């Protein structure tokens, strides 16, 4: 999937903006991983967003779907798959919170069937040019990764020998899959080309 450069910059700027709010306002020892309790509190209070988070209960679904985001006339609802690991809860919540922060008219979509028909093939097609709602699915994840596992940290890690992604995942309290994805050459190159 090809992501428009302008939107990439917008998403990374939003991640930087929230990181700065977190740095100034979070009641948290910043030597630890970024706290999603604090991020949620800041999004709701400091940034004044009306966000309700719940878990959805459906054991039949497996984990094909880990999170759902709704915008409901200026309010936001986030639903997380019940029973996920703490690391996945943290990451999916962060990603959905970036949908709140990146919300704008042009990226909305309520045609669920069309959204899926466009989104699923786009994930595996490196040259696809999907519409904005699909692009924002990916950008929200990139922004979450940037907040929780900053590019600057990743650059330092990549200079080290014998990088153990399991240890890194524990340090940042992230799923190993996410750590591996964002340490990959492709992810590092894409983000590097958009960092100021």
């Amino acid at each position: 999937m090809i992501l428009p450069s302008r939107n990439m910059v917008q998403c990374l700027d939003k991640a930087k903006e929230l990181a700065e709010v977190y740095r100034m306002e979070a009641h948290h020892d910043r030597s630890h991983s970024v706290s999603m309790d604090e991020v949620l509190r800041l999004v709701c209070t400091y940034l004044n967003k009306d966000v309700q988070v719940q878990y959805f209960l459906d054991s039949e679904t497996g984990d094909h779907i880990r999170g759902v985001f709704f915008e409901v006339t200026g309010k936001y609802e986030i639903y997380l798959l019940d029973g996920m690991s703490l690391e996945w809860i943290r990451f999916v919540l962060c990603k959905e919170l970036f949908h709140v922060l990146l919300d704008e008219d042009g990226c909305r979509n309520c045609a669920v069937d069309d959204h899926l028909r466009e989104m699923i093939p786009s994930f595996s097609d490196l040259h696809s040019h999907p519409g904005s709602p699909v692009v924002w699915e990916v950008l929200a994840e990139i922004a979450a990764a940037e907040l929780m596992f900053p590019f600057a940290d990743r650059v330092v890690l990549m200079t080290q020998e014998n990088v153990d992604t399991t240890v890194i995942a524990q340090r940042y309290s992230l799923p190993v899959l996410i750590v591996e994805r964002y340490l990959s050459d492709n992810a590092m190159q894409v983000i590097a080309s958009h960092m100021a």
Partner: protein
Amino acid sequence: MSAFNRLQTLQAALQTRGVRDVKFHLNVTPDTALESVASTVADVLEAIQAGRVRPFEALGDAAHA
């Protein structure tokens, strides 16, 4: 009813209650069939619409300075 027909029914219900944007965090691979994802999404949206949810509680992941 096919998964996509279920999604269209759910979409109408969501719009009735004011939902203007829906997004997902999916766990799919290039081999995952679209129909399978659509079916899962329909299951989840039906669960949410039916109120099969529970409150989110603090994760306790803040290490206070």
